[in-house]
């Protein structure tokens, strides 16, 4: 899917290229644009214009109770006040006592992202093992929890992780961990991120399927050739499997990073969105959600949204820039 995003500049049409169209080609264009119109209208109405308005809101002092026409009133415009507040906000940039929302998001990402990439990859490799019997059954079983609505998954795992009656702490006690040392999970500041990761495990089925399909699409000739050249298992993995599935890993990495910066539903449902324990779960997007929805401060929420947008844009561009060093697209010659 991501390969579509390269060579952006070559695709912008010139006006003369449209003028030069033959009547038949022009007819084709009319039909084509006609079929695309639901997307064009939707893109303008629900994506393009809202982005512009989000930007305008950042220079305003707009509340949910203000009317539409207040957009036109000069007294609602406050210049860069929201940005001044934003860059001094201790909830965003950490204070002496509590971690900031950016820091929280990144700390969690350092745990969740590697697990979110390598665990599905490991399981996909296991499912792709030639000695495995009943691959398609296992594939379905690993995928199955993905379709469980996440609120149900949270309550099921919440029960599993209950510090008194949950199976996980019971298993820990059975394995010899003293009862007093078993974790409090979502209520313990040191265990709350692992708790979210565990609760999120039921979502890895999608990544497993994608990675497994990536592994299966590797031509077997490549493995035969490596075998002939005397490569061992590890060498084959590093020189054949790794480059061949790098586009799939890249796809999951980009979606994972974009998802990480928008992470907030788990803290919202598991810890009621109040940032507990000890302010450790006031993720950036959760703070944004509370600002705009709970406190109904449209303008400050919009400012935070632009901050988020800019960061995601930069990180995505950086990821795409690194891609040429480690992502291998078959059929492409590298200079």
């Amino acid at each position, binding site marked *: *899917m*991501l390969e579509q*995003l390269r060579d*952006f500049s070559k*695709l*912008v049409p010139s006006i003369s290229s449209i003028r030069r*169209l033959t009547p038949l080609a022009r007819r*084709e*264009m009319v039909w*084509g644009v*006609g*079929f*695309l119109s*639901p*997307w064009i*209208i*939707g*893109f303008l*109405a*629900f*994506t393009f214009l*809202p*982005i512009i*308005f*989000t930007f305008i809101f950042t220079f305003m002092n707009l509340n949910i109770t203000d*009317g*539409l026409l207040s957009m036109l009133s000069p007294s609602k415009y406050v210049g860069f006040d929201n940005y001044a507040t934003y860059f001094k906000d201790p909830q965003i940039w950490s204070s002496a006592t509590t971690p900031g929302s950016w820091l929280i998001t990144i700390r969690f990402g350092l745990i969740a992202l590697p697990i979110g990439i390598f665990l599905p990859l490991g*399981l996909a490799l*296991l*499912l792709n093992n030639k*000695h*495995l*019997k*009943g691959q398609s059954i296992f594939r379905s*079983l690993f995928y199955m*929890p993905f*379709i469980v*609505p*996440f*609120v*149900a*998954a949270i*309550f*099921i795992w919440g*029960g599993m992780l209950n510090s008194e009656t949950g*199976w996980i702490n019971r298993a820990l006690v059975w394995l010899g961990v003293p009862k007093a040392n078993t974790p409090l999970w979502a209520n313990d500041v040191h265990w709350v991120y692992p708790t979210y990761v565990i609760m999120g495990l*039921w979502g890895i089925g999608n990544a497993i*399927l*994608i990675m497994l*399909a990536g592994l299966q699409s590797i031509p077997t000739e490549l493995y035969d050739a490596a075998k002939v050249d005397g490569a061992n298992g590890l060498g084959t993995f590093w020189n054949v499997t790794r480059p061949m599935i790098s*586009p799939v890993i890249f796809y999951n990495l980009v979606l994972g990073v*974009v998802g990480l910066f*928008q992470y907030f539903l788990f803290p919202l449902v598991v810890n009621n969105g109040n940032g507990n324990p000890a302010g450790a779960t006031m993720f950036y997007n959760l703070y944004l959600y509370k600002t*705009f*929805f709970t406190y109904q401060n449209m303008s400050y929420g919009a400012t*935070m*949204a632009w901050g988020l*947008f800019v960061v*995601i844009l930069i990180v*995505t561009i950086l990821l795409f820039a690194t891609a040429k060093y480690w992502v291998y697209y078959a059929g492409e010659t590298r200079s």
Partner: protein
Amino acid sequence: MSAETTHSQPQNIGSITPEKAGRREAASPVSARTIHRLRNAVSATLVTGLTMGLVALFLSPFLFMIFTSLKTQGQMSLLGAPIWPAAQVEIEYAGKKIGVYTVPLGKCEGFDPGDASMRNLGLVKKGRQSSTFIDPNNLQGGEILCNVSWRALDRPWTFSPTWSNYAEVVKAINYPRLLWNTFFYALMSNLGTLLSCTLVAYGFSRFRFPGRDLMFMILISTVFLPFAVTIIPTYFFFQKIGWVGTWLPLIVPTFFTNAYDVFLLRQYFMTLPRELDEAAIVDGASPLRVLWSVILPQSFPVLVAVTVFHIVYAWNDYFGPLIYLSAHRELWPISVALPLFNGIYGSRPELIQAGSMLTLLLPLLLFLLAQRFFVQGIVITGVEK
């Protein structure tokens, strides 16, 4: 599993003629082929066993949910209670229900003091020094006096699912109403998605014109756009025109496509041969006619994939209904209602797990019915370019 592996082994035997095999065996008592086969069987057993173990761990919360949802209110917090839904055994004696306890027979009158065996007996009279029991299998045998404190005795458990938990939850959350709301949302938004995404994907896959590929690129890049950067003005605007508190903000935008499903449909349409379209065009069919009579009849699998994805998506959607319907409880889908239920019934784990079961039941059934389409659809979005 190991039975399966041994079954699959003897395939090659037929290809060896008895004579050949005999010569081999003469050379070495265990032939290379046997060693190879044995090694494969061991590998298969190890790999398959490991995978089974991981799957069991991965899916164990389902068992936890089912077990817990069938327990009585008290069992969860009772010390020494089994993990499966169980009840303490009771018997009917002299017109009363009495509990059954596990009694060491050596402490009872009429039994050998050296008797170390235990027996499950009904407790007739409680006492701190000695208690009176009755044998459930021999009620006519008379009461037995034992020198034990009844409090020190264990009680046997018997499998006993409490199905009424489900009835209680169905009533408490008004399950039929929630199901209807969720269904309505899934169906209407699926209608919008199918209609709009099919048209747009057809436009992207079958018409050539300047700017098309640029637009496709913009479409794909919206996948990475954080929703926060569009939601605030959208919400503000919907609130001003009075749509907040109705289904409209959730359903109307689905009639204007989403990037994932357009991509999925476009990839599929691109694989269909153009010869059929061209033949229809030569016969004078309009582009809409080609879509309806040529493309769509060949696209059944991908249309089903989009539909099942979308229904699962709608079932899972929490944020949209939360912000647009928060003050209108009568419109809530099940995903929004469940956390509230969880907040109210926090001390009733058996009801919460029953509620979770009721929430995931329909998507799970859909998955079991339409597995094949799921897998195809995911593979298209994830692996194809």
